[in-house]
């Protein structure tokens, strides 16, 4: 499959085990640009571990992760980020004592070396980009508030904004709507549909309704293994998936 052409992200034969427990086992899947892919699966299926492996947080035991044809498994986290892979954590991870503006500015992909950061200037283009992203995540009128004043949902959006400002070609979001109210979920779905243009977005999620509303394709994991893949309708009628989710 992978030999035909270059995918944006090609995961092949990826495996990792912790103390003998195979968290991810010989996993392969492929993602193209402009695609919004959901990864679902029961607890312990290895969803978050897959994100950890792609983003370099966990080292793979074997297998490869090719991003635009480049191997990621040997790179360090920040190098992977600089290649264009953004990652959002499960719990909102923003800088609470800084303002929304500063949170976005900190993530702006310039001045990433120590001296570069020391002499980083808030140029008009930085300010413009921050405003542009703030508009997109609907936090334009909260720019001067410190992040700890935001609601849970707004923190999630802020973190998505912190990824967006880096303009990554692959965005990985770990449970972006966990703990959100229904209107917030809707808004997040709209946001994700908007941002997957020109890039690929991978969402790990439990909420099936949410997945149905956003995902182009769904990959189902079970005990670290690839179980099924396809549209949400196809997945939901797959007997293997039903068995895994509903038990024997």
């Amino acid at each position: 499959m992978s030999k035909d052409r270059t995918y944006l992200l090609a995961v092949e034969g990826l495996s990792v085990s912790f103390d003998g427990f195979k968290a991810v086992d010989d996993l392969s899947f492929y993602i193209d640009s402009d695609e919004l892919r959901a990864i679902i699966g029961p607890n312990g299926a290895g969803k978050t571990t897959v994100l950890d492996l792609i983003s370099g947080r966990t080292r793979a035991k074997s297998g490869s992760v090719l991003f635009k044809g480049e191997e990621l498994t040997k790179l360090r986290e920040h190098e992977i980020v600089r290649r264009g892979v953004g990652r959002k954590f499960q719990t909102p991870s923003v800088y609470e004592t800084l303002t929304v503006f500063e949170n976005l500015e900190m993530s702006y992909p310039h001045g990433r070396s120590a001296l570069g950061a020391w002499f980083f200037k808030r140029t008009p283009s930085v300010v413009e980009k921050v405003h542009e992203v703030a508009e997109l995540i609907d936090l334009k009128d909260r720019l001067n508030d410190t992040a700890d004043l935001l609601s849970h949902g707004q923190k999630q959006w802020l973190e998505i904004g912190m990824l967006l400002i880096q303009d990554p070609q692959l965005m990985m979001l770990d449970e972006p709507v966990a703990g959100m109210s229904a209107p917030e979920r809707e808004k997040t779905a709209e946001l994700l549909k908007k941002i997957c243009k020109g890039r690929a977005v991978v969402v790990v999620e439990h909420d099936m309704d949410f997945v149905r509303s956003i995902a182009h394709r769904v990959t189902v994991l079970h005990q670290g293994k690839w179980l099924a893949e396809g549209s949400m309708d196809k997945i939901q009628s797959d007997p293997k998936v039903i068995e895994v989710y509903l038990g024997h």
Partner: protein
Amino acid sequence: MDATTKEPEIVATASAVTVASATPSTKSKGTGSSLPGFWGKFFSTAAERNAFLLVAALILLVFPALLSPFRLSLVGKYLTYAFVGLGLVVCWGYGGILSLGQGVFFGLGGYCMAMFLKLEASDPVSTAIQSTPGIPDFMDWNQLTALPMFWKPFKSFLFTAAAIPIVPGILALIIGAAMFKRRVGGVYFAIITQTVAAILSILIIGQQGFTGGVNGITDLKTLHGWDIRPDHAKSILYFINAGLLLVATLLCYHLSRSKLGRLLLAMRDKEDRVRFSGYSVANLKTFVFVFGAILSAIGGAMFTLQVGFMSPSFVGIVPSIEMVICAALGGREWILGAILGTLVVNFGKTFFSERFPELWLFLIGALFIGVVMVFPNGLAGLRRDALAKAWAGFRGRFGKTPLSPNDLAQSGLAGAGGTEKP
């Protein structure tokens, strides 16, 4: 940013005061409240700038005017430790990297300077009675007959001036790169730096012929023929040291106001987020560690010049920990606190050791324990409380001068409650 209304601004500042009480240096940064112009590059508020100017006046005017030459040279010595304190505020207070081995860098800077001065003091004429004239006296006592290789470049002042920051800088770079790339941090890093301090002081003491051993390098006389020992020379060195210290302080303030300063605080609390924003956390940590080491080294070199000798007792574990205590007493996130903390601890040490020669170590220990128990945030916390109290008193007395529409609405209440305050 400018177009925002006043309302969120007030909310932001009010919350920054309450929420950021544990992290004072992050409050009101980057919002509309920053100082304009030259000072704005260094300080976020006028109060912080004024505090800096007060400390500068204290060091440059008040001490020289009030203190005898002997006392002034003591203050000059204390101020060389303040360089270490500044480095610790940046490394530990901002970056969360606790080093218990800053004495290593202070000592290396001091030894570089001492080697140059010693060679100048060991000319063949004044060492004519030695069996090998022209080498430092302690080498002669240890039966060395030629100057060791690594001493030779220190005949050049230019080389020495370069070596003072570079030698400790490179050592810090090696330690930092080796540790931070492997994600060694926290207590483990502190222990390793402490080990380095122990190793270096043992090495210096053991290699007596090369280093002067436990006595250190003594009898330093001139710098390029200029006698550094008389009072007037000491007072000139005091002002050079004070000037360097204030420049270093401004440099730290400049760093703290930059994106690097915010990154360090962010890294301390959310290391993974910083890493996944594309920053090399290891490189940032190594950078500030080297920065702190270079500051310490400058302090060490100035120490040697002012005090006239350098010995292993400024390298090992005890002085390194004392320097951390000074920074903690100042409030580890308050840059000026490093200077004030150093002054308070060392004035205390001198005072106790003169008045209570038998008890002074216990008293200084009690001072530390007391400070940690009563003012966990050090002088920075004390200053904040004192300012808040003074402000409350001021508001109580002059409660009819409101600040914002919000205050206006409550001024009746505030005035009535506030009058009870003295």
